[in-house]
């Protein structure tokens, strides 16, 4: 783990993922990496995230696949049950829709349905996020579906250090993990300790301390909440930003401690607000802190529509720092 004296490196989330994969494959010969175009023959991934792995660890452990997500996840399930730790890549989250059976009916359930005999320690890495004008079928956030599915964990990092540390933990985890990369944060550089090790799943991070209101968020929206908090500070409002890191299981203790302290909370995510994951968190906060809240718990998320193409619409689709600041201000003035 990083300490104050640890050497710090500047790298993007993508580089952090590459580093985590190298490290995990080096440390454990059971770790496998596969997906469309991931081997070096195919350029190490269309984004280059897996570049170098197949050259170093061989074509048997690092494999490019046909375009067949059901068979990708299926092979991951079987290999995991046979004692391996597959890290399967589904290029974009929208393509997970063709592999839902393998994830939901199989990966997530086989341990339970077998009474504990089957273990399925797989990781599915996937990428998503609006902002690049890839429109309705290339940028959806469906983490809520998987959070609602018993038996699979959902991780959604926001910083390069977390990309590395959480991926290491996801690979070590004895159960299936969906690891969600966000296209707006993946290429943003940040500090990562040279010896950055695993960061535990299920533990939130206080991304910024504050006293008046809690902004509870994860993935790409951490940056927007931090921007909103900076803006709110100029208006005399001190916002605390909690980065969940893991969407499911989420860190109830950390969230309740923060909301208890501030008395006000907004849950912010990129996913559509309607029946989105924010509902679980907001509901729990009001259940647990009923008399202590100074204002209702709010939720911010995308409007009820597909991700639009035109930049002007895409910007309006995404929750912006100004939206968060306005909602926070209104809550602080709530009466």
């Amino acid at each position, binding site marked *: 783990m990083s300490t104050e004296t640890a050497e710090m490196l500047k790298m993007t989330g993508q580089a952090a993922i590459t580093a985590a994969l190298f490290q995990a494959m080096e440390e454990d010969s059971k770790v496998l990496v596969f997906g469309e175009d991931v081997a070096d023959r195919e350029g190490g991934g269309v984004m280059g995230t897996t570049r170098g792995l197949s050259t170093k660890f061989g074509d048997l452990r690092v494999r490019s*696949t*046909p375009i*067949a997500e059901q*068979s990708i996840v299926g*092979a991951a399930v*079987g290999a995991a049950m046979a004692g391996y730790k597959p890290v399967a890549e589904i290029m974009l989250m929208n393509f997970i829709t063709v592999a839902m059976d393998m994830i939901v009916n199989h990966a997530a359930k*086989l341990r339970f349905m077998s009474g*504990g005999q089957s*273990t399925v320690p797989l990781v599915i890495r996937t990428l998503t996020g609006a902002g690049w004008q890839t429109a309705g079928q290339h940028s959806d956030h469906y983490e809520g579906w998987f959070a609602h599915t018993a038996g699979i964990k959902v991780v959604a990092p926001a910083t390069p250090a977390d990309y590395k540390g959480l991926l290491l933990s996801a690979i070590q985890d004895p159960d299936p993990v969906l690891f969600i990369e966000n296209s707006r944060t993946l290429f943003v550089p940040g500090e990562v300790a040279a010896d950055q090790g695993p960061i535990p799943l299920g533990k939130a991070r206080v991304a910024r301390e504050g006293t008046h209101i809690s902004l509870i968020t994860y993935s790409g929206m951490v940056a927007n909440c931090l921007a909103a908090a900076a803006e709110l500070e100029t208006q005399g409002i001190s916002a605390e930003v909690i980065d969940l890191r893991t969407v499911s299981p989420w860190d109830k203790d950390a969230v309740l401690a923060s909301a208890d302290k501030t008395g006000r909370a907004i849950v912010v995510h990129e996913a559509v607000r309607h029946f989105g994951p924010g509902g679980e968190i907001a509901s729990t906060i009001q259940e647990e802190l009923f008399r202590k809240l100074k204002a209702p718990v709010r939720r911010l998320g995308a409007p009820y529509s597909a991700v639009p193409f035109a930049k002007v619409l895409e910007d309006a689709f995404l929750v912006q720092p100004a939206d968060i600041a306005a909602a926070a201000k209104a809550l602080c003035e709530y009466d």
Partner: protein
Amino acid sequence: MFSPRSSRGDKAKPFERGLMSQTLENRASPDAATQLDIYRRMVRIERNDEFTRTQIRRGRITAPYYSARGQEVIPSTLSNLMTDDDVICTIYRGIHDMVAKGMPLRPLWAEICGRIDGTCKGKGGPMHLTHPETGVMVTTGIVGSSMPIANGFAWASLLDGSKRVTVAYFGDGASNIGAFHEALNLASVWKLPVIFVCSNNGFAEHTRYENATSVDFISKRAIGYGMPGYTVDGNDPLDMYAHAHAAIERARAGDGPTLLECKTFRFMGHVFGDADSYMTKEEKDAALAKDPLVLFRQKLLDDGIATEEQLEEMKTSIEAEVQDAIDFAFESGYASVDELRRDVFAEEIPA
């Protein structure tokens, strides 16, 4: 089926295959002991099935039951050629595959009865029986899904450097779903040691083969995956043996997957108790008249491989095994409701 023609061994051509189907060259034949072993597995399946149906009729088992009566030859022959290290991925209609593979009957019955001593502590039930010790790795209730998972086990064999073979069982209806296509393509491109065993019983629920399947022989689809594919008489242990042997040898040799379309018939309809109105009495009667268990028994006697007494003794001892399993199951208790919090993850979910 056991006409002189089909017992001629390597000349057997029980089906008039279309232009582009493949025919196996070097056909292996089971010796006497092997034939007896296959028959023993068949009887174990059939007795277990019969006893299960009796318990259902008496109202002692409440879950839906997908009998495989009539399909005994397929897994019995394959299992004879497999070891405990070899693994299978099977389906809701798969108890025969497990029994053939050698799964002990006590935990099997306890599971069917939802008891704590079941293979899955009563959490999975008959559609999700699992028994890794005998290689029963996955039982799925989703049509087609045994195949992509089987590939993962087969990939693991390559990684392990082992000779372990994986068998994926599925039905004719399943050959029309996307998972079939994706799995066969991947297995072929990766040369995986996996055998895709389609039990073509002519029906998918109430739908007749030809009303849902666009090709006369499913084995022809293997052409599209550059893989050997054979239509086999799945009720003939000799034809099954020849093809299963070739497929397993090929897999063990590292030459890749094979598709076996095994023609058979399910005597009890889709789910036990269904009305069978989607088939004619004639075709059902014709199938029943060719009960593979009866025919193979006769062949063993005719060929002097076993005596009436031996076969009766075999049956009696198997019935005792089944009865013992039933007694065991009904004496077993139920899981505590805490089990809802266990096996979701490795770590127990807090209460």
